[in-house]
């Protein structure tokens, strides 16, 4: 029985591969052997290079809850509770509404995609709050590089970039005047 099945399989395989080739000679050309080539296109197999860098971005922690930039605002609200106040800022012509969520000592700006609000930036408002790495409003500007490392100082702002987010310290006469966490990737989304 075994021998028999092997033969049938072989024949079946032959049927599949057996592109019986009666060698019809193409007109006026030597009996075409079997070399030609197909220009199949390599387009698809290129991996989409712009995968989001794996490295995690900057995060501000409020009462133990991390505010993940670019994540859904509702997720944070569910954990940390509703904001004191919400200011809605419809953009000039289109329906999308940017919102400002007011929390004690800081605000969260959101931007909408198809009706869901995502966190765009977090701005610290008073000196009682510190970044997870320990920087607070009014702190000496020169102390920041040894907390976050060297950075190119542009006029009066120190900007750190990590994992698609930026952390900006605006300094006025040597002291930190503003701390903003900003979701870089949002720019391409918003356009």
């Amino acid at each position: 029985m075994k021998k028999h099945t092997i033969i049938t399989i072989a024949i079946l395989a032959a049927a599949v591969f057996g592109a019986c080739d009666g060698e019809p000679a193409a007109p006026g050309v030597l009996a075409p052997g079997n070399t030609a080539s197909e220009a199949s296109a390599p387009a698809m197999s290129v991996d989409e290079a712009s995968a989001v860098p794996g490295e995690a971005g900057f995060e501000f922690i409020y009462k133990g809850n991390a505010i993940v930039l670019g994540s859904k605002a509702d997720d944070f609200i569910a954990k940390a509770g509703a904001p004191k106040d919400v200011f809605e800022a419809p953009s000039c012509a289109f329906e999308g509404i940017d919102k400002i969520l007011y929390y004690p000592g800081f605000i969260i700006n959101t931007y909408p995609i198809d009706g869901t609000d995502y966190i765009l930036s977090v701005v610290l408002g008073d000196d009682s709050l510190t970044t997870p790495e320990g920087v607070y409003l009014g702190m000496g500007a020169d102390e920041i590089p040894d907390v976050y490392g060297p950075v190119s100082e542009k006029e009066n702002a120190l900007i750190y970039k990590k994992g698609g987010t930026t952390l900006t310290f605006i300094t006025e006469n040597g002291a930190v005047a503003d701390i903003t966490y900003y979701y870089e990737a949002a720019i391409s989304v918003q356009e």
Partner: protein
Amino acid sequence: MDKLLVILRNLDAEADFENCVTLIDGGILDSFDIISIIAAIDEEFGITVPAEEIIPENFNSAKALYEMIQRLDEE
């Protein structure tokens, strides 16, 4: 010439090599046969057939093949 016919005949017994003139165009000889003929020519006549000679005019009939062999022999 008959040595050539012997080579051709043991490739394909039935084909009428004496007077058929469309060995290639008629699809009687395929690329396998062509290479075998070149190998046989190399063996029997000691002549190597360069790639540029593999054109229908030379391989379409036994006579054309023979003429090619003679031409290559003089060069």
